[in-house]
């Protein structure tokens, strides 16, 4: 009686879906911007607001753009690792100070150290919207032409660095040669 085998077949299908599902990461939200040029921006610099930082300044080298704010607890957690990345010289690290107060942000950098080459101030979060920022912290890896090649929502971990970011940087460098 074949109808008694129906539950077994249905279950087989379910296991298949679950097995595929297991290989996916549910917290990984694909960014529509990956593979596209980063949105243009021109924002005042945190340390010297009379000067501007724009996308053009980032082009020419591989850069990691890190969205942070002094009110953001996870940024505090992430900070030592960002500093480590910057110190290793593997990539130029830039900051996007997101919806923050200048005084608080400077105090934060003074207390924890400033790993950034330069920091753009996005006071009203306009540029963050163009980038599709979900919330701080968030990081974008840009290639030499300012194209977004990688995005991480939430703090970058050593594992992200080892498994995703570092190999990507290596690939970009290899391509350049």
């Amino acid at each position: 009686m074949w109808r008694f085998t129906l539950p077994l077949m249905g279950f087989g299908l379910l296991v298949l879906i679950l097995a595929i599902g297991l290989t996916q990461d549910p917290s990984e939200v694909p960014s529509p911007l990956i593979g596209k040029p980063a949105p243009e921006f021109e924002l005042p610099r945190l340390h010297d607001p009379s000067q501007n930082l724009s996308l053009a300044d980032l082009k020419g080298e591989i850069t990691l753009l890190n969205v942070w704010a002094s009110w953001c607890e996870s940024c505090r957690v992430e900070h030592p690792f960002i500093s480590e990345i910057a110190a290793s010289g593997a990539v130029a690290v830039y900051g996007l100070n997101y919806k923050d107060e200048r005084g608080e942000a400077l105090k934060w950098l003074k207390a924890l150290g400033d790993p950034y080459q330069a920091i753009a101030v996005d006071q009203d979060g306009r540029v963050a919207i163009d980038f599709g920022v979900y919330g701080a912290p968030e990081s974008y890896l840009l290639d030499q032409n300012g194209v977004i090649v990688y995005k991480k929502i939430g703090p970058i971990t050593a594992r992200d660095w080892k498994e995703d970011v570092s190999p990507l940087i290596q690939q970009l460098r290899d391509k350049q040669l």
Partner: protein
Amino acid sequence: MIPEFGNFALVMALGIALVQSIVPLVGAVQNNSRMMAVAVPAARLQFVCVAISFLCLTISFIQNDFSVLYVAKNSNSLLPLHYRISAVWGSHEGSLLLWALILSGWTIAVSIFKKSLPLTLSSRVLAILGIISVGFLLFLLLTSNPFLRLFPAAAEGNDLNPLLQDPGLIFHPPILYMGYVGLAVPFAFAIAALLQGRIDASWTRWSRPWALVAWIFLTLGIALGSWWAYYELGWGGWWFWDPVENASFMPWLVTTALLHSLAVTEQRNTFKAWTLLLSIFGFSLSLLGTFLVRSGVLVSVHAFATDPARGVFILIFLAFVIGSALFLYAWRASAIISLGRFSALSRETLLLINNVLLLVACATILVGTLYPLFMDAMQLGKISVGPPYFDKVFAPLMLLLVFVLGFGPMTHWRKDTFKNLINRLLKSALISALLGMAFVLLIFGPAPLLTTLAVVLGVWVIASSLATFKNHLGKDKPLDRLRLLPLAYFGMLVAHIGVGVFIIGVTLVSTYEQSETVRLAVGESYTLANRRFELADLTSVQGPNYNAEQATIKIFRGDHLVSTQFPEKRFYHSSSQPMTEAGIDAGLFRDFYISLGEPQQGNAWTMRLNYKPFVRWIWLGALLMAFGGLLAVLDRRYRKKQEGAN
């Protein structure tokens, strides 16, 4: 030493569980009663070993042994003793150990109560439970060992997740697990029946109380979880259609169907293969729930630590256990013949409709829960399925089910006629329609059609249950008949009335709840649902491992002070996330629920004021269902047969 001892006990338990699962099965095939007799001592020894292991972990928590990684991650020396003990199951590893302990507890219960069962059947059941134990013990030892040491030892622990530092959470997981794991017993009975190729009356009489007890625990566990979410998460919601909640609700629906199908099998000797399939489904869904919760394939507010290796292990285990059960079913079920015949209108038909509706409800939840996963697996994009989907598909199914429910107990087995049925129930139908509408109109005024319909159906279930009861007593000598009524019959009525109470509660609270987010400074007040909420005071409070801001809120009705509530915002030392402790003025007919938002300038806070009419009826209904189940378990007929066999 103690953690190593616990680890050793766990390894011992695994070895014994292997013996428990292999030897009796071989014995059953060879008809060797000495091999089959191994099952009982093995089951008991296994329980002792798992219990020792569990005790060792508990001692490590009580002694603040932060050289044990799991203790260091989930406890803290400032944590009060009762939370140090409940922290044992506060995270993944300990939860699994609790799971294994409860499983061996159920196994030992089977080995104690099995006396009148044929040896072949009982040893097969114990062996199958042993196989499941082997799986969970391996899972613990290979991927989730709670006894791993931390070197050097931590000076201080991380503290238990503040969300779990709550009396409700001390009891919620063990009770829910009792239900989850308890489903393994009817599952094992079903597999044993398939192995022997037949179901007889004694099998059903045996399987039914076990399914009932597991169902009672599941009901209580889900209700407790819902109640906890209501007062602890600070949103005032009682059900979120979260994957983890769904994981517990799906087995409940299937087990409810199983209980009704078992009733048909016991009374009418039919629905046999179906009952077996439902027994398999029940436990399969509880395993699937474990997979969903523990593997991290789904995003959930119950963010448990997840690990892909664990997911792979559970999936393999799941595929093995459920796959072989369903294979066995495909192979042997056709040999199990149902005898009873019934006509289109009979209690059997209505119970069949009940089963179909419950299963469809379960399937819609399964689809809704797995759909995002399916889309992701097929590379069709990321989506999430939210409460609107579940509410939309679930409400009509439940209303239909409740409508049929009113007829079920009043309908005769085998064959009935519409004319008789209407004769018996017309009065209660009219009464419930009138009463239901009057009830809504008088308390709340003109109501939406769906709300009125749902309340009428809720009253209908209660009224028809009472009518059934009256009908059963008859006109002459009702007291004599009352004495003869089986306890299980009362159980059914009470549980059904619980369903009615639940439906009324859900309908009224979801239609008429009011909530408002306001900013109040000390001395200011706001009026919601005829009550004036006045912020009387703001103070800082010191807890053992947290600081809190506490508001004093006086609730007035006119000039009369109804109650004073103290909602808090807690900042645990270990966590950057503040916790909301809601202030709840609870009542049988309404709750007033206050949760603090953010502090504002000028000695003020934003806060959310909620009026929740009849919200308690939701849990009252669940309690009635569980109590009905308890009455049914205590029925004489389950005890008598065993005593008779002694």
